[in-house]
């Protein structure tokens, strides 16, 4: 069952566990990667020039210009007529796509990938919302796809926390269905898309293709559990929670092969996302959430892909 989830009233307790995180992220900015097209006013630089208060340059008065834009003081000093030119700002909507498949409930003891994903999503939503940007959410788990349309409401972050609080990781996410529901976010230059998950979903290649063809900003945050990077050494039979047919015997002799295969897959995944023009971040369950959020926002400055396309 899927559908939008916008609780009529959001309980303040929805943010109780992430309160310290949100406090730590106060003042963090998440600028757009380059100048945006014209749009509703926001905090991000726009290509369009306007008559705002932030002076950018002077232009000689031409026939047809609005006389109200004349800088009278400059005219009095120089006896020449000039018009004030300022930059426009626009909003940059953000859509968070969070993987809530069964594999996100790992490890069973300690901080799970789902807990990190939830904190990361709320942290990024808080930063984006603080900049006046609309923030939306899609959470895919099993047969369910929870959607929250982008909005700038005051209680947006709390509402997102309430939506995330109702989701339990299970089944296969099938993130590809998020593309169909994401609307214009995955087409054209309409905003930024942040995909948070362990990318073990079979629809990840479709997301990569969408990132490649889209003019928007894509962020791929790859979550890996410490126990996946360094599994226990005792012999056991390991199974994939999303595919019961995958049962392998783990021994000390299989460790080397596992490390090589897993490392190669992670490297290939990163290369694909970067080749698609996305910003990629590898995060582990050991990393503090606030640090992860700051690293994501700094990707806007650190990525090697040209900022303006």
């Amino acid at each position, binding site marked *: 069952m899927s559908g939008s989830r916008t609780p009529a009233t959001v309980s303040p307790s929805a943010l109780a566990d992430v309160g310290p995180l949100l406090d730590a992220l106060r003042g963090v900015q998440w600028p757009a990667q380059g100048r945006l097209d014209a749009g509703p006013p926001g905090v991000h630089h726009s290509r369009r020039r306007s008559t705002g208060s932030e002076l950018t340059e002077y232009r000689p008065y031409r026939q047809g210009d609005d006389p109200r834009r004349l800088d009278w003081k400059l005219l009095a000093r120089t006896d020449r007529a000039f018009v004030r030119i300022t930059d426009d700002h626009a909003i940059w909507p953000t859509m968070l796509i969070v993987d809530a498949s*069964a*594999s996100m409930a*790992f490890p*069973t003891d300690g901080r799970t990938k789902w807990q990190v994903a939830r904190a990361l999503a709320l942290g990024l939503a808080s930063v984006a919302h603080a900049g006046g940007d609309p923030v939306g959410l899609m959470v895919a788990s099993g047969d369910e796809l929870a959607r929250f349309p982008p909005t700038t409401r005051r209680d947006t972050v709390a509402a997102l926390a309430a939506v995330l609080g109702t989701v339990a990781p299970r089944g296969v996410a099938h993130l590809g269905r998020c593309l169909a529901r994401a609307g214009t976010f995955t087409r054209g230059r309409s905003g930024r898309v942040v995909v948070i998950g*362990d990318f*073990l979903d079979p629809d990840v290649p479709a997301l990569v293709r969408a990132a490649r063809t889209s003019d928007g900003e894509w962020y791929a945050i790859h979550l890996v*559990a410490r*126990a*996946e990077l360094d*599994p226990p050494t*005792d*012999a*056991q*039979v*390991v*199974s*994939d*929670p*999303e*595919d019961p047919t*995958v*049962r*392998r*015997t*783990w*021994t000390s002799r*299989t460790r080397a*092969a*596992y490390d090589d*295969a*897993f490392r190669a*897959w992670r490297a290939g995944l990163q290369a694909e996302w970067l080749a698609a023009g996305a910003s990629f971040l590898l995060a582990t369950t050991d990393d503090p959430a606030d640090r992860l959020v700051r690293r994501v926002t700094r990707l806007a400055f650190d990525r090697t892909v040209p900022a303006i396309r």
Partner: protein
Amino acid sequence: MTFGAPAFLLVSAVAAAAIGALHLITLREPRGTMLPTARFVPSGTSVVRRWIRRPTDGPLLACRLAAVCLTGLAFARPRPREPRVALVTIVAADRSDDVADLGAVADSARRWTGMEAADGSGAGARRRVLLVLFDSSARLVESHVEDSLARLAGPHVAGGVVSGMRHGSISTALVAAMQAAGRWRDRADSVEMVLISPLAADEEDAATGPLRAQWAGRIGVVRVAERPAPRPDRMARPVVDWPPDGRAAHTVPRVPADSVGAVVAGDVVVVAAFARPWRLDGAGGRVVARWSDGDPAAVERARRAPGSSTPGSCERDVAIPIPAEGDLTLRPEFRRLQAALHAPCGAADDPPPGGRAPLAWTGAGAVSPTRVAMASVGRGVDAEPPRRSWLGALLLALAALALLAELAIRRGAARRPA
């Protein structure tokens, strides 16, 4: 409990330890856990070998250990330990025709068996008496001893005829006695032998000395009266066959020929160097003169008058060579020897075996410990093989039951779903 082959106990212990160690290795599928990145683990067998602290299949292990231990115990040939006694007395009683009064032999034997009864019987008894009845053959009497002694003292077909006498064989008695002693080698602290016999000359042979030497302990001798051999008329003059070279009738060449230093006839002793190329057979006669080493030197045999069943006179075969040189024949003792050898029939007394007075039989010292008395006997006289113990069969049966139980447990485990 004693074991005939204790090495099997060690073998079974080692096998049981190996089985126990193998049960600490499990080949089952290890515990399962979730790992989202399991797809990157290379495919392989789902069974791993790992050590565990405690075996999980307790009943199966118990059955296998029981089967191995019981089998080892059965092959170790357990025997119930028989009660040990302090002293075993082997009484060899002569029942041959050489004995004048078998009742005396039975009475002497009863004195020893009575000692056993007085000292108690069964577990913890201090003395055990074994009775060996012998004549030309020997028989160990283990049960109904009193009945055997009663028959011994009862009416007996008396000897009286010269031929057909059952002479006793001390060698046979010694062999039987030592065999009987061998059976108690491990169950008695000390052993002694008692010989009740007239010690007739006919009862000894060439093996008697070596056999006696094999018994390092004391042999008590109870000498009973000897039945007199049928004697010819004491007044009849003997027919003396005394060739100068000593080759009388009933002689065979002595191989190798030797020499001896003296000859004894009654109380006459002649000391000289006698060459002995011939050996005189003393069977069937009465030895009237012996060499110093005990071999017969002159034998008297009865001679029947034609048509008479009783001996009338006697003939003496003398195998004493008369030296051609020297003054031996002039010595007074030689003349007394001649006189003794020509004495009327039956007059000469059979001297005891030279150097074998009854006292010499007894040996030195007191009762000997079993290991000392049997020291020389050990290899030649084997202890009676122990009776087959029922314990071995029972243990093997129990081992078979344990194997059946193990099989049932394994089949039950195979049928149960994992």
